[in-house]
């Protein structure tokens, strides 16, 4: 626990917890209409007492849009990373634990998939499936899987060679029991660290996809979509890009800081 009590740990953890609370609680307490109500007389107005972050091209309040957009961005990133862990975990464990031909074939496939830039893979899948909220999750989830499978495989391989695994095997433990009892708990720290860092990348990927029009679609509000909408008004209303951009940046920064500290605490073998 003491490892978290550094400036970086407290700030990163604070940002992550705040963003999670905003993403979960805001939709419960703030009605949708706050973010969708248009005020044509106050289009593209700067930050003021009425609209603390200003308004967009349709006169909608940017504060409420960015707060309610948190849910979409956080949910997509969380679900995508969860998906890549759920697919990557069995692949990585089987590959690392059993080794041999299975390992060769799976890792050749994973290495090939790693030649495709993750964002390109996600964009292609999203374009193929048709962009919407669910397909954005699937696209990012698939795009991140090879990377996670690789990390998990390395960890499983390391654990499989440990003396305690050998001892358990000598005592007649079955493979399934071994994986659940010994391998899984010992690779968990690495998965948690990588998962946190992947969350940061997933937030960026969602913003990138939506920015290109191949991610979240209106009327769903997301940060990337808000930045995309701001492109035509940069000259007159730069805050329309700055507000959602800052939301992405602060969230990703928080996750990166938290990830760094988690790695120091849980997985001290690897250095930042």
């Amino acid at each position, binding site marked *: 626990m003491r490892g978290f009590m550094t400036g970086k740990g407290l700030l990163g953890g604070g940002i992550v917890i705040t963003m999670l609370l905003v993403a979960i609680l805001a939709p419960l307490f703030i009605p949708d209409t706050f973010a969708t109500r248009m005020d044509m007389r106050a289009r593209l107005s700067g930050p003021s007492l009425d609209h603390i972050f200003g308004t967009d091209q349709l006169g909608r309040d940017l504060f409420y849009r960015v707060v309610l957009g948190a849910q979409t961005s956080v949910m997509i990133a969380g679900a995508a990373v969860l998906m890549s862990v759920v697919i990557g975990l069995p692949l990585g464990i089987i590959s690392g634990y059993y080794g041999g031909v299975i390992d060769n074939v799976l890792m050749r496939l994973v290495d090939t*998939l790693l030649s*495709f*830039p993750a964002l390109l893979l996600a964009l292609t899948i999203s374009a*193929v499936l048709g962009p919407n909220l669910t397909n954005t999750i699937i696209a990012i989830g698939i795009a991140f899987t090879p990377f996670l499978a690789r990390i998990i495989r390395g960890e499983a391989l390391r654990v499989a060679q440990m003396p305690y695994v050998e001892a358990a095997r000598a005592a007649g433990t079955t493979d399934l029991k071994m994986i659940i009892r010994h391998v899984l708990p010992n690779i968990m720290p690495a998965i948690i660290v990588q998962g946190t860092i992947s969350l940061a990348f997933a937030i960026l990927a969602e913003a990138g996809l939506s920015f290109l029009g191949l991610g979240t679609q209106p009327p769903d509000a997301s940060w990337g979509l808000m930045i995309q909408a701001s*492109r035509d008004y940069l000259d007159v209303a730069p805050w329309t890009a700055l507000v959602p951009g800052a939301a992405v*940046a602060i969230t990703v920064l928080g996750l990166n800081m938290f990830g760094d500290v988690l790695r120091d605490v849980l997985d001290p073998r690897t250095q930042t």
Partner: protein
Amino acid sequence: MAYIINRVLSVLLTLFLISVITFAVTNILPGDVAMMIMGTQSNPEALAGLRESLGLNDPLIVQYGRWIGGLLTGDWGHSLVFREPIAPLIAQKVVASGVIVVMSMTIALLFAIPLGVWAAIHRDRWQDSTASTSALVGVSLPDFFWGIMLILLFARALGWFPSSGFVHPADDLLGAIRHAFLPSLALGLGLMAHLTRMTRSTMIGILQQEFIRVARAKGLAEREVVWSYGLRNAIGPVLTVAGLQVGYLFGSIIVVESLFNYTGMGWLTYQALLNRDIPLIQSSVFVIAAVVMLTNLLVDLLYVVIDPRIRLS
């Protein structure tokens, strides 16, 4: 020799797998090329006729064979959106992207290495926290956000650089660099932040080693210890990471080139995806993955040149 043959075979196998994956992904598209050409409202009989003549009724394996045969013989087919042959179109866009990839990598390495070393030799002091914190902020900002900031500052407010368009280096070298500058900087800043972190941690590891203590003990100037003993050993790992980042870079160019209307591979791929131009999607995705894979191979080989201790095995 055996190593090289092995390596080449492995590259060919990977290229083959890349082509299979690309073909498979684009073939789960609902709707096909015939539909794209004639539109959804077209006469079903004419559509069936076109499908037959394009060979879309053949089994997938035959279609794949025809596509890969075309790739190998230089007949890459026609783009549906641009109504041009694909091979020359891609050749031209690769040059444009090559310019910004090289420029952004140069910018990133030029600043990241000194900054990372500087942070490492002042570990845990203000110099380190300044460099490390800026680098952490740098990796957390999306590339297109950097892009928007750069447009606002350098194009709109100061007017120093154009915010959109591409000029071919053969036509006007200075113009080409000016047009490529902002997109390269947008890509380079994120990359620089990443490489600074990498250089710092590698250097910290190396500066704790025995031979550094020996070098200090025998009275070498600190500058020599750091730059010729320390950095020389850190440069290999840093370049390897830089090479791995080329893949990341080719993902980012899609966003950044679109933002700056810079007509390179990223822009082309985006247009293909947006318009569901299946033949163009297949070729450009294949080319990008192949370039990334070959770059990584090149970096592996370069590593052996830089660090002769690593022997081919």
